[in-house]
């Protein structure tokens, strides 16, 4: 379903050229739960951005739900993203000026969901992450863990085929981390493809497969015996 073929991603700034991904090839099947691990700066977020069509690769081919998107325009990428992807960002990325419910709503408005449906689905999503009682709060009024749960609610509210989670538990204590992991595991078992970046071996263990990156290369793929 997702397939990277010899993907390279190079960042050019005025002085230096950083090769964030170097000849990466891998395949992720529908409904898989994949963990991505590796030291800071090895290219994990870069890979997730490519998978989520937020950025395009310098070279190589990316097959996204059967389409080669490497040369797609921003408008086409947007359309695909809208239809298929949900994000949980490393740094929450909630919009400061919007309330919790409105933040979750952002994932729905561009998908043309009617306002009645939106209200229902937002309520459900917040219920699932246990944030219903905070629907009217602003992000600054929440703790880090609560913000992350809202971010998860936003990712799952649109019922995407693919969820990309960049260190969803990185800023959380054990209990909150467990809660988020449980939600992701639940989604994966429900047939959603989940790609998650994590530094925690324990959380990685929840995934079927772990991909290890080092300096932009895939160094190992471990398949967890079910």
């Amino acid at each position, binding site marked *: 379903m997702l397939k990277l073929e010899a993907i390279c991603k190079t960042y050019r700034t005025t002085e230096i050229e950083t090769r964030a991904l170097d000849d990466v090839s891998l395949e992720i099947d529908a409904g898989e739960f994949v963990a991505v691990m590796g030291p800071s700066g090895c290219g994990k977020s870069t890979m997730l*951005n490519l998978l*989520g069509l*937020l*950025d*395009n690769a310098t070279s190589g081919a990316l097959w996204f739900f059967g389409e080669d998107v490497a040369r797609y325009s*921003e*408008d086409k990428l*947007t*359309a695909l*993203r*809208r*239809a298929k*992807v949900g*994000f949980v*960002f490393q*740094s929450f*990325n*909630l*919009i*400061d*000026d919007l309330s919790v419910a409105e933040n979750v709503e*952002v*994932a729905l408005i*561009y*998908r043309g969901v009617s306002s009645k449906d939106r209200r229902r689905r937002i309520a459900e999503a917040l219920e699932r992450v246990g944030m219903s009682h905070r629907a009217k709060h602003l992000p*600054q009024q929440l703790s880090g863990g609560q913000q992350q749960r809202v971010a998860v609610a*936003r990712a799952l509210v*649109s019922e995407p085929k693919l969820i990309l989670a960049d260190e969803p538990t990185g800023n959380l204590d054990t209990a909150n981390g467990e809660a988020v992991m449980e939600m992701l595991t639940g989604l994966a078992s429900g047939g959603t493809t989940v790609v998650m970046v994590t530094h925690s071996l324990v959380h990685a263990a929840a995934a079927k497969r772990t991909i290890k990156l080092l300096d932009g290369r895939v160094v190992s793929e471990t398949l967890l015996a079910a």
Partner: protein
Amino acid sequence: MLRHYLIAALRNLARNKLYAAINIVGLAVGFAAALMIALFVRHETSYDAWLPNASSTYLLAMSATPTGGVPENMLETPADLPAQMKLDMPAIELIARMERQRLAVRHGDFEASERTVFWADPNIFALLQLPVFVGDLSTALDQPGSVVITRKMARKYFGKDDAIGETLELDRTNIVKVTAVLQDLPSNTNLDTEFIISGRSAFSDLTRLDTRADCPACFEDDVSTYVRLKPGAVIGVLQDAMPVFLERHKHAALALMATRQLRLSMSFVPLAALHTRPELAEYMKPAADPTILYAISGIGLLIILAASINFINLMTARAARRSVEIGIRKVSGARRRDLVVQFIGEAILYVLLGAILAVALVELLLPLLGVFLNATIIFDWWRQPALIAVIVGCVVVVGVLAGSYPAFLLSSFRPTSVLKSGSLSVTGAPPVRQILVVVQFTILIGLIVAMIVISHQTSYALNEGMRLNLDQRMELDTAASRTIPGSTCGQPFRDAVAALPGVKASACSGPFMNGFQDFHLEVITEKGTKIDAAYLPIDYGFFELYGLRPLAGRFFSREHPADAVPVDDNNQSVWQAPIIINETAVRAFGFTSAADSIGKSVTADGGRPGNHPSTIIGVVPDMALDTIHTAILPEIFFVDVKQLVVLFITLDGRNIPETLARIDRLWSEIGAPRPLRHTFMNEWVQRYYQDVIRQSRLVTAFAGVALFIAGLGLFGLSAFTAERRTKEIGIRKAMGANRFDIMKLLVWQFAKPVLWANLIAWPVAWYFMNRWLHGFAAHVELQLWIFAAATGIALAIALATVSAHAFRVASARPVAALRHE
């Protein structure tokens, strides 16, 4: 400390060049506009105030009020009053008369018809202490036949400035000798005196007035009477003494007024106040309406407000950028007060830079402004400490006012919140910014509405408002040919002109349009109602010349010999011939329609013997015989060859200079005593509506300035917003928003305040423009499209400035936005 703040402020300025530029340029343009307005207003309010002793110098005014009617004001008074007043009223130090007469002035081969020629009592210069270039003004007019001219006229006639001893010929008959030369007068004076001739001359009109036998209609030859009070005298006392004075001398004016059932009153108008008293009859130059001056000053303030709003908005919007600076300062012990002082100081620095740029801008644009407003506007700040003080004062006031909101907002941040997050959300600031943007656009939309309405009215006044086709129509003043025996409207001349190949049509009339349309009479209808009406003697073909058609009945025609006014035994015209009336008269005289009035009769100037009812033979459409400031009156037209003084012709538009030269030649061939005066009607109308044209230009310019400032502000604010909302935009794009969604988001954010602004701008603009329009008897209507157009323009400006940023941000890859954190 100060040095430290100054460095911090300048660094901040240098680091944010775009914002600094937007702020300073906006303030500079706003200030420059306001400064020019101030200079213009100063010009308009300083008329003749610069004359020495202006505060104790007055012009005698007279008003005639019909019972229950509106007073008619006159600034010209009977010529015999001053001598008696000087004897009876000890409070008067000096009293002197001036009388304008249009004369042909000649020197050698050069001759021109001058309208700035005045006869004056020799002591006039003791009263009006005009600046002299050469000569002694205290004795200059003592000798009969002496004349004082301006440098401009000296150069015009003699090609040199010092023209003492030179001579000029008046109307090709009398010789006068130059005894002094005046400096050219500034434009802020009512005195357009360029030739001042001694009233002692035997051929002077003042002499004629002084030596004539008592006449019943004395103020057909009126003069301007200037009065200087003795120190300590009170003008009110003098004014109160006037009725008794007139009674005592049984002045002829009183009797004349009484027969016309008018109440006469006299007053003294301070010289410096003349220009701003439009209710007084037009004096030497058209007056300035103080309401308009207030309105224009108000616009100046609004423009400064608009520029200040840019400053406030950008300053608070950028506040987040300086949060760390503020946090560190606070942690290091800065009190809130210190920060407030720092930020207000910064604001003053910006405003000061803006003001300096503004002064330079005004210097640069000053000549243009003069041409634009048709006035010599002086900006002599280096010679006027008061002007500098005012500018500096404005800088401080605007700086403090514009700086205090950002200063209090910025200084209120808590150091912990600032330092913890590295940035801060300025809660409360966005709504204030939105409100300020709304205010700015309210000003903008209001000014655009004013601009459209005023230009609409101006074009109406110059075109349809006249209700006459003035194109290629020309007025020839043939009054001088009346001295030639047997000539009516210069009869032989008229026929010769009509025969010229370039002349399509010609017709004569009485004095018309040139501002002296005050031929009033009373009309008694068949039912016996008395109605005040205006009248105009005309010639056959007069209406046809202006392209008018009868609404009912017919126009005068030579085929009906009875159309002409007959003459009685004393060769006086008799009100008896058929008349044509206008639409307004149809209504005023109580007819149900134009057709209804045909064949009916009214009696003109009832009460005088010899007046019989006149039959109405035609109705002409309403047309402007005066400016559209005054309502169209019921009007009566009749054919009376004895009263025709003006010849109107229609040119075919080809070889105009040649045709004019031929007309001039014909004029001199009939032996006329002075050159022929000719004016294109369009030119004349332009001059008459100068005030409206000027207002239109001013408001258009200011609307342009406001447009520029508002556009600049939005540009800065949208750049900032695009930047501030980068993360949000990234998130939205990650969630599936496309370019269009993002554009919509950003553009809508700025379109909203524009739409809100209409809520205030429309009613306010409607109120003021409606009032303005009602200053005209004939005016265009306020139509919805004007308001819609204003909103459209404002919206277009908003969208144009915002879309550039919005498009850039909306087109970027989302990851770029998200990395921004």
